[in-house]
């Protein structure tokens, strides 16, 4: 590749970037997203606060308990705390429940609730809560009350057999079970494939895939649209006497990447601002950045250091470059704007395959049905690597060595794709006709190779148009180079 093949990329880059920034749709979307992100933390904190305020005090004024279990539970201590400060809990003999229900039915707007505690023959305790049909009580309030009462009942029914608080806490400890296997040496080792990732890790992996997919989609779409516009409006005719095709595509790709980086940087800054505003106005607990949550997230990213961060960022960058080149090729295969969707099928297919592999892997990781080998393979495959590798690396699911191999593979594939593009793009950019299929593009590459290897008579064109053409190289007697 000669250097002058790329002369003029800077002008193309600056022009493309400026025009993209000036687009109303771009600015509108950017502003909208920034406003949403800026408002996110304060608004959600405000809603949480409002929700807490609303549920702080129950609207239920009295709870009458009809216990027919005969356990002898003392319900006077049930439902304590700030929420139930104004609530009066009363206990009545069980047989009065039906008549009290009758009274409640006839009452207008009573805020009293009844609970009927029974032991069923089928072998379980049953708590039936009743409120008046005309009662102005919120379902959420009643549900919370029933849950709190149930929690009290769970402890109380054990306490009646003289279990103290310490013993009760011990009984209530969670139970965890796992299957382990013995080695040939007789040692017990944990089952490798059985442990799935946590929900938080699952969300982090999924978010990683979605973010990369958004970046790829935004930049790829922008490049393809720009190329198709230049081809369909014939601007390319004018450009081609001033700038080489490769400079054109390089300038566009870099402009698209810069646009996406600017977008995401703006979103990041907005989120930081949003979190700061949320913390200042509502405090840590309400703004969703409480110490417990922070430490939990920090634990997830315990493996992160500057090296892994750079590796993940490099992978995203190279991955976006890879898909941008595919988008550029797909755009050049189209001559008319209305055929763009058809021309972009290959690009979209590759994008879908790559991201779906990532999503599928993510689900399998959560279910614990996937081995490290499969994760490593998905991180190395060039189509899925940009979606899978960064988040898995940051979570410590794959090692730095795998990350490096993955990056190297994607770089090699991107370089090969770029070299292929350099061979066919010149011919494709002038092609005017139906959408070029993959076999047509391969035919162009074949013709160009034949022309380079045998610079005598030119290789004939391919399918139905100027598929073997290209630029005259000075000093070569006008032969196809």
């Amino acid at each position, binding site marked *: 590749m000669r250097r002058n093949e790329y002369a003029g990329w800077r*002008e193309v880059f600056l022009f493309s970037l400026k025009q993209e920034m000036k687009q109303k749709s771009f600015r509108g979307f950017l502003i909208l997203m920034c406003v949403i992100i800026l408002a996110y933390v304060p608004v959600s904190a405000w809603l949480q606060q409002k929700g807490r305020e609303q549920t702080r005090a129950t609207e239920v004024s009295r709870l009458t308990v009809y216990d027919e279990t005969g356990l002898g539970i003392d319900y006077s201590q049930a439902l304590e705390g700030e929420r139930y400060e104004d609530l009066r809990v009363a206990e009545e003999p069980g047989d009065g429940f039906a008549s009290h229900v009758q009274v409640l039915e006839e009452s207008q707007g009573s805020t009293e609730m009844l609970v009927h505690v029974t032991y069923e023959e089928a072998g379980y305790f049953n708590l039936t809560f009743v409120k008046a049909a005309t009662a102005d009580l919120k379902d959420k309030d009643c549900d919370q009350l029933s849950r709190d009462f149930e929690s009290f009942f769970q402890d109380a029914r054990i306490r009646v057999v003289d279990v103290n608080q310490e013993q009760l806490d011990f009984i209530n400890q969670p139970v965890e079970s796992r299957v382990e296997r013995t080695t040939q040496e007789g040692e017990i080792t944990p089952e490798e494939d059985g442990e799935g990732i946590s929900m938080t890790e699952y969300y982090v992996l999924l978010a990683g895939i979605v973010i990369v997919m958004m970046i790829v989609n935004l930049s790829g779409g922008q490049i393809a649209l720009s190329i198709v516009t*230049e081809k369909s409006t014939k601007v390319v005719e*004018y450009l081609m006497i*001033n700038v080489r095709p490769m400079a054109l595509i390089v300038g566009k790709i870099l402009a698209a990447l810069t646009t996406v980086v600017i977008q995401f940087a703006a979103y990041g800054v907005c989120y930081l601002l949003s979190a700061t505003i949320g913390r200042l106005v509502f405090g840590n607990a309400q703004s969703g950045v409480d110490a417990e949550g922070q430490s939990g997230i920090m634990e997830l990213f315990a493996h992160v250091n500057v090296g892994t961060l750079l590796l993940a960022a490099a992978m995203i960058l190279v991955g976006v470059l890879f898909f941008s080149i595919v988008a550029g090729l797909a755009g050049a295969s189209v001559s008319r704007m209305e055929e763009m969707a058809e021309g972009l099928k290959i690009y979209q297919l590759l994008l879908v395959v790559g991201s779906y592999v990532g999503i599928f892997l993510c689900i399998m990781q959560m279910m614990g049905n996937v081995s490290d080998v499969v994760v490593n393979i998905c991180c190395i495959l060039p189509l899925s690597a940009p979606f899978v590798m960064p988040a898995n690396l940051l979570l410590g699911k794959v090692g730095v060595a795998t990350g490096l191999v993955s990056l190297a593979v994607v770089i090699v594939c991107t370089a090969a794709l770029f070299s292929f593009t350099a061979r066919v793009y010149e011919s494709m950019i002038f092609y005017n006709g139906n959408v070029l299929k993959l076999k047509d593009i391969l035919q162009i590459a074949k013709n160009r190779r034949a022309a380079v290897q045998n610079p005598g008579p*030119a290789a*004939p064109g391919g399918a139905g148009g100027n598929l073997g053409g290209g630029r005259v190289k000075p*000093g070569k007697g006008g*032969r*196809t180079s």
Partner: protein
Amino acid sequence: MSLEVKKLTKKYGEKTVVDGLSFTLEKPGVYALLGTNGAGKTTSIRMILGMLACDSGQVLWQGKPMDAMHMNVGYLAEERGLYPKYELMDQLLYFAKLKGVPRDTARERIAYWAGRLEVEEYLYPPKTKGKKAEKPKMADQLSKGNQQKIQLMAALLSEPQLLILDEPLSGLDPVNTDLFKGIIREEMDKGKYLIMSSHQMATIEEFCEDITILNRGRAVLQGNLNEIKRSYGRVNMFVKCDQPFEDIIERHALPIINDTPDGKQLKVAGEEQALDFLQDLLKERRQVVKFELREPSLHEIFIEKAGTAQEEESDAADRRKAENGGTHEEK
């Protein structure tokens, strides 16, 4: 000798779209590339500009292989293109920058050409006092003619040594046609080299000394326009009389080329036959309103050459068809 085109050939598959085209521009002026639709004019221009690889042949500029990227060439494409949704000023500055024109110089030249081509209002939206300034115009807000003017501006911004105009006057109204012609004349006066392709033969006759007529990729006529015309002789006779004179035409066995209310166009073998015809008209006391004897126009030469070549092609195809027993279509 500044531009030399040597045996340019271009094939698409089995089809030869340009077949050994050669011509030279020895001195500044306008060179015409003529041809029917699909004759290979635009392909030839693209090869000259290096946009398209030729299968064989060479283009030399001042004796060296021409590289449009490293010389100052202006190009007005037949299929004109501007970014529909970008501001015109941005586009012109971009095109100028690609040509290496400094920004300030580009702005000065844009201002000059905007005035010259009467498109200032689109590039410099007027500001009305007390009102919000109008937004700069996008290409898709302009008429086709005005878009063409912007394209011509883009071609001229770098003050090119060689200017290639592919159908520059197509789609223009008479006022703008005159405006474009004036600019072409100015460029000629500045000593520029121009290659122009057009279907408007009158315009070509107005500007060009040398021409090439292409038909199906081949040059069917080339040379100095005046010499070409002279070689045909004064064989076109235009006659209009107050009385009918068909009997005299019949007597002289002259073919009628055209019959209009403005008179009849007749084909004569030479000046002597024309004078005999005139003498007969006068002898028989026909009131002659108009009598003109002149060389064939470029239009007529073009029709004859392009038409003949097409007929020859058609005959050859028929022959091939007959040889193949009429079973194969011409490919």
